[in-house]
């Protein structure tokens, strides 16, 4: 089995310099996404087909003082990924490394991933009609593993992070660091928690993990991330039963046609009916 990797955003260390966003643009060769200034420090309100990662900045007034909460928002690379389950052409796939990869050649831009993502991450590009999202620099990660976990090849955002807030390594390492940091944070922040580290929810955690000083909802993340309940019904019941039903109809008429040909049944326009 391939090495399972993960990324960890240690939110308390983040200075919101947005170097990660810039590094992402550079490595992915993405154009600038010019957004209007609407009185907030956060540069981009949401991800787009040209922006795969951004820093969420939230201002909260606490005792007449501004408190900043930062979060590197991007694809969570869920353990069970709604986008991949919803994808009809298997263009999106949860890899053994933990990366949710995207095959541009298989993608037909149907947008089922947009609808079924727990976090609203993928965006279909209006021009190319292809779905887009962070793939955790899959190409770099392949080199990382190939070269015996050489940190030189970690994803562009992690490599550029000046505050050591974005960490990258094997999942095992990252889980260990996350829990150590949680123990430290807990002394100062009673609500501190990890995110996507535990795999006991319906998305089974994720390969993009966080250590958060406050509750996930403070950062605009669902406290209890949920895989769309419609997905299970759709993929496990509706589609298999639907295929059987359509197949049964074909078999029934083919059977009737054969029986009628062989026996000459009903040939006389139903003369024998009445």
């Amino acid at each position: 089995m391939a090495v399972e990797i993960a990324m960890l955003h240690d939110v308390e260390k983040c200075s919101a310099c947005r170097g990660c966003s810039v590094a992402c643009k550079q490595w992915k060769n993405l154009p600038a996404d010019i957004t209007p200034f609407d009185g907030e420090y956060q540069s981009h309100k949401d991800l787009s087909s040209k922006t795969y990662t951004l820093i969420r900045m939230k201002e909260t007034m606490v005792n007449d003082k501004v408190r900043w909460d930062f979060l590197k928002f991007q694809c969570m690379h869920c353990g069970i990924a709604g986008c991949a389950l919803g994808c009809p052409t298997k263009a999106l796939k949860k890899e053994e490394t933990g990366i949710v990869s995207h095959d541009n050649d298989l993608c037909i831009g149907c947008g089922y991933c947009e609808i079924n993502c727990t976090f609203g991450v993928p965006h279909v590009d209006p021009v190319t009609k292809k779905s887009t999202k962070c793939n955790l620099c899959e190409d770099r990660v392949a080199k990382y593993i190939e070269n015996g976990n050489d940190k030189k090849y970690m994803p562009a955002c992690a490599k550029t992070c000046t505050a050591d807030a974005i960490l990258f390594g094997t999942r095992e390492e990252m889980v260990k660091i996350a829990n150590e940091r949680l123990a430290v944070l807990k002394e100062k922040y009673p609500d501190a928690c990890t995110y996507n580290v535990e795999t006991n929810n319906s998305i089974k955690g994720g390969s993009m993990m966080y250590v958060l000083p406050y509750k996930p909802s403070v950062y605009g993340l669902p406290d209890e991330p949920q895989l769309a309940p419609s997905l299970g019904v759709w993929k496990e019941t509706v589609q298999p039963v639907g295929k059987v039903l359509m197949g049964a109809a074909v078999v029934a008429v083919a059977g009737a046609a054969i029986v009628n040909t062989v026996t000459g049944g009903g040939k006389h326009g139903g003369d024998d009916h009445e």
Partner: protein
Amino acid sequence: MSNEKTVKRFSKFVIIAHWTNAISFIMLVLTGLPLFLGISVPDVLQIVHRVFAVTFLLPTPFMILMDRKGFMNWTKNAWSWKKHDFQFLAVFPLELIGKAKNIPKQDFFNGGQKLNSVLTIIGAIIMVCTGFIMWFKELFPKALVQWAYPVHDAGMAIMVAVIIGHIYLSVGHPASRPSFMGMTKGVVPESYAKEHHGRWYDELKEKNEI
């Protein structure tokens, strides 16, 4: 059968509406089924699917404007279920292999055609509503859009199964094949009307229409 006496069954408006609906439906299945089966197809089919979604809608207003009587005859008849309709359905599997005996006299639409109509009407409403939600997804809550997909797929599977039977009975099945003429020329052989739609035939006799 060439010089056999015929009786009028459908107006030309019914025939136009039926074939507009049929072609739209087939195109909708051909452009939609690949996604259901997980086959990668050019993304232009998503646009073709929407074009035929619009033509699929046209027969209803067309019928209401052009031939309200024909439209009401079908919709009313489809929902009137009597004992003889259920009796028809009970012996239908035997009828399918040409072995049915003593089928009770049927209305203008027999029990099977009524079932086909009911499933088609309900199915079309479900497909149009869920399709609208999927097309204009930004207007609806995310959970509703998510549920629209499995419902659209389920509706498609049921309607395809129904249409496979419908097509076989109209062009393949020896006993009911003469009915196909009703949807092309608008008439059916008098003998066919008598044998397959006895109650309708009796009504026509009563009214001295044949």
